[in-house]
């Protein structure tokens, strides 16, 4: 996201074109070609406090950042496909919140790693096998019911986790979590209300909502396997189970038994991730270090 226009030819100096006012150099930040999107943690102290294991912090921020980045991309794919304009706005906004979380977390992961990688290196210049997101985030949605089922599981789990991370030893991670909690409270409510509306709707919507929940359930176990790194997520599972059951009960859907996840949480991916990254990384790979 490091675009700049310092290489702009002199012939386009503001006073020589009919569009001088538009290219007022001091005002470049308003324009796509000159935004110079910088480090989202710009000005936030980058040091890692003593007593924190840098490798653990980097791994944890990378995993949570990857979850948000990949889930956000899947949500963005719903724009222009949502059933109503209001839902399109909702999904775009939720995707934007998660993209913001991803930028902060990947930047923090790069700082903790200490190898000079920034958010762009981590988002655009890694191979599928290097991504640490849970499989749940990358699944393609067969229909809107699948989307809201996946978003319910994702936001219920992530909200419970972030709520506990607000007291993380790393102050930057704690601050990112505190912002995320406020945002994801709205995400979870949005998904839960749709699951109830469809589950407790017509015979057809009920059937399709049940099918969507059934399809998502095998991907829940993985979420609870890797909380031993850096941070103990005490009570996350219990809170998830309570909220998930509360929503399904209101939706007149039987609460399913959740099987354990696959061994090696975050180690494996479905073929869907390769497809997502092919789309997301295409421009960055075609024009390395591109400048507009």
């Amino acid at each position, binding site marked *: 996201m490091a675009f700049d226009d310092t290489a702009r030819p002199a012939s386009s100096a503001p006073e020589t074109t009919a569009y001088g006012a538009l290219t007022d150099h001091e*005002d470049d930040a308003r324009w796509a070609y000159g935004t110079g999107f910088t480090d989202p943690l710009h*000005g936030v102290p980058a040091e890692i406090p003593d007593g924190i294991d840098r490798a653990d912090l980097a791994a944890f921020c990378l995993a949570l950042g990857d979850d948000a980045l990949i889930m956000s991309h899947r949500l963005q794919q719903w724009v222009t496909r949502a059933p109503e304009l*209001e839902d399109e*706005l909702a999904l775009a906004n939720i995707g*934007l919140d998660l993209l913001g979380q991803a930028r902060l977390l990947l930047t923090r992961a790069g700082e903790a790693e200490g190898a000079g990688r920034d958010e762009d290196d981590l988002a655009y210049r890694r191979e599928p096998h290097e991504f640490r997101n849970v499989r749940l985030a990358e699944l393609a949605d067969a229909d809107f019911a699948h989307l809201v089922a996946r978003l319910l599981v994702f936001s219920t789990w992530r909200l419970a986790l972030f709520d506990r991370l607000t007291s993380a030893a790393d102050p930057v991670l704690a601050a*990112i979590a*505190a*912002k995320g909690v406020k*945002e994801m409270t709205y995400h979870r409510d949005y998904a839960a*209300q749709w699951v109830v509306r469809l589950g407790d709707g017509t015979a057809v919507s009920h059937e399709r909502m049940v099918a969507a929940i059934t399809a998502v359930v095998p991907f829940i176990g993985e979420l609870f396997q890797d909380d031993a790194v850096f941070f103990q997520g005490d009570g996350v599972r219990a809170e998830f189970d309570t909220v998930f059951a509360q929503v399904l009960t209101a939706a007149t859907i039987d609460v399913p038994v959740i099987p354990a996840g696959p061994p090696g949480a975050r180690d494996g991916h479905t073929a869907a991730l390769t497809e997502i990254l092919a789309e997301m990384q295409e421009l960055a790979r075609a024009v390395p270090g591109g400048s507009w």
Partner: protein
Amino acid sequence: MTAQAVVGTVTDPELPMVTLAELGIVREVRQDGDGVVVTITPTYSGCPAMESIRADIATALRRAGFAQVEVRTVLAPAWTTDWISESGRRKLAEAGIAPPGAAPRRAAGPIPLTLTPRPSAVRCPRCGSAETEAVAAFGATACRELRRCPACREPFEHMKEI
């Protein structure tokens, strides 16, 4: 003009009727000779206006003659709509955007789930009716939701409490 006064004139790129200071985005302006350090905080994690906000503040200060300008970000404490000033709330309402009520106070324990529309005291910014309905929890930006007023039959936006 002091640096504080200059920064106080800069408006929000998405809500140009209010200033960044009125929204509570500007957390501190520290002046040291002709050097100024401004601290700002994002409203939402993904706020796409942060770059623009940073640039607008720096431009305003440079035009006012401050040579050394630094704009820093701070993430904690997280921004809350409670930081929007009285004048900011009045200007939002005048522009047809219902200002936020008090941010939710959380009791101990898990964050409560909301399965039905929250009871709301949001007044219609046009006719003042207290009976308004939620249309959608997300609007044109992350910070706003869509509502409508059955009394005057107009839709309006409301800045969500966070």
